[in-house]
């Protein structure tokens, strides 16, 4: 069966890799960078929501942990940015493992799982905004120190390529999971937990590991956001908007496919460009049109963009 995702994904990723040669700075590069960050967050959500079958509404918890940990370690403790980044990704992974273990051990799934993760993220958001060490209501501003050693580049192409490399790694990670024994166990758990248990698989353990991997990738997106924009506050790190953004791209692009999140992020960007070209002068109308297009895509491509059939199966 030929699907659009596997066909279009690799050349699109290559083109994105070459994009800075045509657009070394400016609007196209900045929006493409944001697109890549959306894709990474989407890939992270896809691992848990698509492959693991557990829709989270609280991915901001992991993303925010990444962004805030690295900011905190640099601003408050003077850590080197790269070391702080590694620690932040580790922290995100740990938070994922802890949240997964706690929630799955209690047997929560479906909407219950979704809303508990949302509650966790909201608790984190309120807490972070309440204490001075985490920047309180203002947030954390990382001082400008351009230079490779401090993970801040004056050439915007470098963070772009770093994000691009993470997207590539995300695709490879996803394909790796798909083909591994772990992926097979994950699929078994997703389709029928009782049957999986009969086969000697421990569902809680499998789902917890899956959450940890997903959380680590989400934290990576948070770290990249922080290093590019050098500022994070509670709403931009742990807000509901982040959790919604995490699920938008992979569902639109195609769940449980390696290329879905990237295609979804690309589609969202193109839609945004389109409505701006048509109704950019009419704030509000443009976003309403965006919503209409979103609904129409789902109506006519229910399996996501990656799932659109190129030709009928023989």
């Amino acid at each position, binding site marked *: 069966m030929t699907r659009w995702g596997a066909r279009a994904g690799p050349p699109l990723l290559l083109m994105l890799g070459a994009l800075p040669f045509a657009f070394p700075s400016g609007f196209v590069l900045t929006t493409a960078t944001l697109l890549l960050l959306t894709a990474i967050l989407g890939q992270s959500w896809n691992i848990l929501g698509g492959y693991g079958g557990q829709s989270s509404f609280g991915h901001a918890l992991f993303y925010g942990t990444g962004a805030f940990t690295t900011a905190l370690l640099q601003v408050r403790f003077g850590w080197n940015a790269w070391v702080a980044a590694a620690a932040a990704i580790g922290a995100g992974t740990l938070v994922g493992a802890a949240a997964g273990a706690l929630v799955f051990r209690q047997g929560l799934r479906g909407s219950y799982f979704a*809303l508990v993760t949302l509650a966790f993220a909201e608790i984190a958001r309120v807490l972070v905004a309440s204490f001075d060490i985490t920047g309180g209501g203002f947030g954390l501003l990382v001082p400008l120190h351009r230079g490779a050693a401090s993970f801040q580049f004056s050439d915007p192409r470098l963070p772009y390529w770093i994000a691009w490399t993470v997207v590539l790694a995300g695709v490879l990670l996803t394909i790796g999971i798909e083909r591994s024994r772990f992926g097979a166990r994950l699929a078994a758990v997703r389709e029928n937990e009782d049957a999986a248990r009969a086969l000697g698989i421990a569902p809680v353990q499998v789902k917890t590991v899956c959450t940890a991997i997903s959380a680590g990738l989400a934290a990576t997106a948070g770290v990249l956001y922080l290093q590019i924009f050098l500022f994070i506050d509670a709403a931009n790190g742990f807000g509901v908007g982040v959790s919604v953004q995490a699920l938008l791209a992979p569902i639109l692009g195609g769940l449980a496919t390696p290329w879905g999140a990237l295609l979804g992020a690309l589609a969202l960007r193109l839609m945004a460009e389109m409505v701006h070209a048509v109704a950019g002068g009419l*704030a509000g109308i443009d976003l*309403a049109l965006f919503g209409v297009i979103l609904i129409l895509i*789902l*109506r006519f491509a*229910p399996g996501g963009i990656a799932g659109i059939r190129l030709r009928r199966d023989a």
Partner: protein
Amino acid sequence: MSTALLLSALVGGLANGAVYALVALGLTLIYGVLHIINFAHGSLLMLALYASWILWSALGVSPYVALVLLAPLFFALGYALQRWVIGPAGQGRDANVLLVTLGVSIVIDNLALAVFGPATRTVDIPLATSTIDLGVMYLPLPRLIAFVAALLLSGGLWLLLNRTDLGRAIRAVARESDAARLVGIRVAHIHAVTFGIGTASVAAAACLLLPSFYVSPDAGYAFVLVAFTVVVMGGMGSFPGALLAGLVIGVIESFSGLWFGPSLAPIGIYAAFALVLLFRPTGLFGARA
């Protein structure tokens, strides 16, 4: 901490909780029957707040009178949304339905901004500022009305679901939609009717809320997360559960606000929510799965 303050926090919490329950009633019905998370709920609430405000500002219709007009209107809106937008575009996939309702909320929010403008509106009716002197506090009359209405509406919805043929059909679809189809129930129609009733409930909640609140294009978001919390805590699809959970959450919020400050009050809500779910995964009133 004085007894007066504790007592008034209890009354205030119950009054707020009733509003949360009101907003959550429609959501829990949709959640329980269609098994979908309706992201557009807050936007529909906002739309109904505007509808009620327009009736007041243009024609001088009190929101309490507007309720009678808007409930059927929003039933039709909800029916149409589910029948011709959410149903066909969601195609029965949970993730897609989620995104479709998100799309619907984006459309409603931004159209509201474009049409009504960004200003904050309030209604100015004598009843809105009337209070009852309880000694420890002045209980706003709109809150008392909302409290009574929450009891009546949850009771009415319970009767509708448990004592009528329509209710039996809705429950059949909620439990086994395939089996329901086999016995001749038009599932798509019942889904749309359910969504319509849920949306009509939101309109009722909006009319009861408006005299003690305001409307602006982002007004719905103040209530949407707390409504989800109420729905899950009360057990999906349970009206008595939503009522009880709404009141419980209102009181928890009120007391945690009193003790830890209003800034940290949301933590009280979400912590209580997470604890209930972790130890009683089907909610306070949920059926054993």
